[in-house]
């Protein structure tokens, strides 16, 4: 399984804090997004927002970043701390 979590405005837009995905057919972040859209078509435009950031196991990633079973994948808006 792959644990997917959402933060801040994105979590509110999706009305979802997180979800578990079957790792089959998933080898990078782009695949994770595709799997999410497949089960939640209404998320498509939100997840396609180019400004969205992603991380795998607490490190920033991009569409090509590898994802394996057991990984934690996060999606979130650009950060605004400090």
């Amino acid at each position, binding site marked *: 399984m792959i644990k997917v979590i959402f*933060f801040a405005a994105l979590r509110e837009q999706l009305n979802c804090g997180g979800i578990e995905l079957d790792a089959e057919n998933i080898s990078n972040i782009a695949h994770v997004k595709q799997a999410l859209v497949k089960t939640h078509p209404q998320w498509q435009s939100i997840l396609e927002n180019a400004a969205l950031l992603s991380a795998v196991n*607490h490190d920033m990633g991009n569409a090509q970043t590898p994802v394996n079973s057991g990984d934690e994948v996060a999606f*979130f808006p650009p*950060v605004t*701390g*400090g």
Partner: protein
Amino acid sequence: MKSLFSPPLLVVNGMKNSVNTSNNHRISIQEQDFSLNDEVALLEADNYEDGAVVTFSGRVRNKNLGLNVKGLYLEHYPGMTEKSLEKIIEDAKQRWQLGRISVIHRIGQLYLGEQIVFVGVTSKHRQDAFAAAEFIMDFLKIKAPFWKKELTEEGENWLEARIIDENKAKQWK
């Protein structure tokens, strides 16, 4: 230099509080307020090598983008936040000769005038401490996974990242 900050490694579950003390730096993500005096005292205690202590603290201010701010709600990504701040601190240590570094960031509900963030750096001379404190804040602003929801008289809204912060950090490259 003593290997720091007398409080031992401390993680308080359920309080959203984590303190990591190692290699002369300290990171704390916490709900509770902090005392500038206490933080400076920790940076200085048994530290006679460093002549410079630079601190920055950020507070909730009353206006943003024309809105009247009443407070902020701060969310973060536990685990990634600490990892990201560790990386920023390590990068700073590569660039300058630094003594001790403390980074504190509060989370949860904060009101007008409350402290949000603290960065403290010591070094032998002032140039390194000034530069490192600014560097750490600049990268915290664009890399560390914190998000602010603003509570204003006009309503609640998540803050948008600002290009000015991105450009500021790029100046260090």
